[in-house]
């Protein structure tokens, strides 16, 4: 990790460009270790009914709030009204005004409902929230969200939990070219190369959950993802060579025996 490479979202600085979800780990202890291995500084959480049986462990017992910023999501919301309500509940729980805004349009694909997403973004921005909307990989719509005041846009690489990687790199590239706010690729990562590809293209960060939590060894995968994100970022900054159809020799012909 290099100190000079800082990602800034809504005035908040991040040295890690990897954002990690807290769902689906085998247990909280593994999650805690995986989060540490990932090097992440911001983790997503959901807002749900409290467990009234206090003998059970709580997620927050395993998240050091001095190390991690919480990013509450509105997962499971299918309308703008619902998402706005959950964002406000999250603000009340967390006393922070950041939200990963999800408004889902379809149960099987978990693709966003753009119309409702834009509506919710406008309401929450007006209400003082820092809104990070999870959106389609649609350059026109990403721009609309940005114009509506989103602090970052988070296009999906592929459906949530699918592990299919970056399905439409060219549309993500267009989003990156046009955006004036940070672009976080959210969802779809299956393994390290997917994360690297997003970062090599110039994505400002990647948000993932299942790729780490669902791996056979989540802690090892978390470390792998940290390295993939850093490698991809460095390669982007270094500037890759252009692709060519023919070879160009790395070794000079000069000095060969005549």
């Amino acid at each position, binding site marked *: 990790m290099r100190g000079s490479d800082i990602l800034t979202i809504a005035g908040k600085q991040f040295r890690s460009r990897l954002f990690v*979800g*807290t*769902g*689906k*780990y085998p247990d909280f202890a593994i*999650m805690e270790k995986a989060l540490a291995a990932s090097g992440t500084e911001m983790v*997503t*959480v*959901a*807002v*749900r*009914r*409290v467990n*009234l049986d*206090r003998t059970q462990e*709580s*997620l*927050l017992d395993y998240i050091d709030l001095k190390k991690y910023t*919480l990013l*509450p*999501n509105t*997962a499971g919301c299918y309308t703008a009204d619902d998402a706005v309500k959950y964002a*406000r*509940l*999250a603000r*009340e*729980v*967390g*006393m922070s005004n950041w939200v990963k805004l999800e408004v889902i349009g379809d149960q099987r694909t978990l693709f966003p409902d753009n119309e409702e997403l834009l509506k919710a973004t406008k309401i929450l921005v007006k209400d003082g929230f820092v809104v990070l909307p999870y959106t389609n990989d649609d350059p026109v719509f990403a721009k609309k969200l940005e114009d509506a005041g989103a602090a970052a846009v988070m296009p999906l690489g592929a459906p*949530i*939990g699918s592990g299919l990687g970056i399905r439409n790199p060219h549309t993500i590239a267009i989003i990156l070219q046009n955006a004036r706010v940070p672009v976080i690729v959210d*969802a779809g990562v299956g393994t390290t190369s997917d994360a690297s590809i997003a970062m090599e293209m110039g994505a400002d960060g990647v948000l993932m*959950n*299942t790729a780490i939590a669902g791996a056979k060894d989540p802690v090892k995968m978390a470390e792998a993802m940290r390295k993939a994100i850093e490698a991809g970022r460095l390669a982007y900054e270094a500037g890759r060579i252009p692709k060519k159809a023919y070879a160009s020799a790395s070794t000079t012909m000069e000095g060969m025996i005549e």
Partner: protein
Amino acid sequence: MEIRLNGKTREVADGMTVSQLLDELKLQALRVAVQVNTDIVKRERYAEVALRSGDTVEILTFMSGG
């Protein structure tokens, strides 16, 4: 009186405030959000908002999620 708490019926003392309910549930120390019927009750109003019979109360917190 009876209230509906997180989807289940619960018997509580008449006129119980949100603050007293959180005490009874041993949730005071936890980060939660409280919604009574359709309104979010702000933290600073927990002690003054009294519940009424039949109220629907939701107490939420952060749970695992992506």
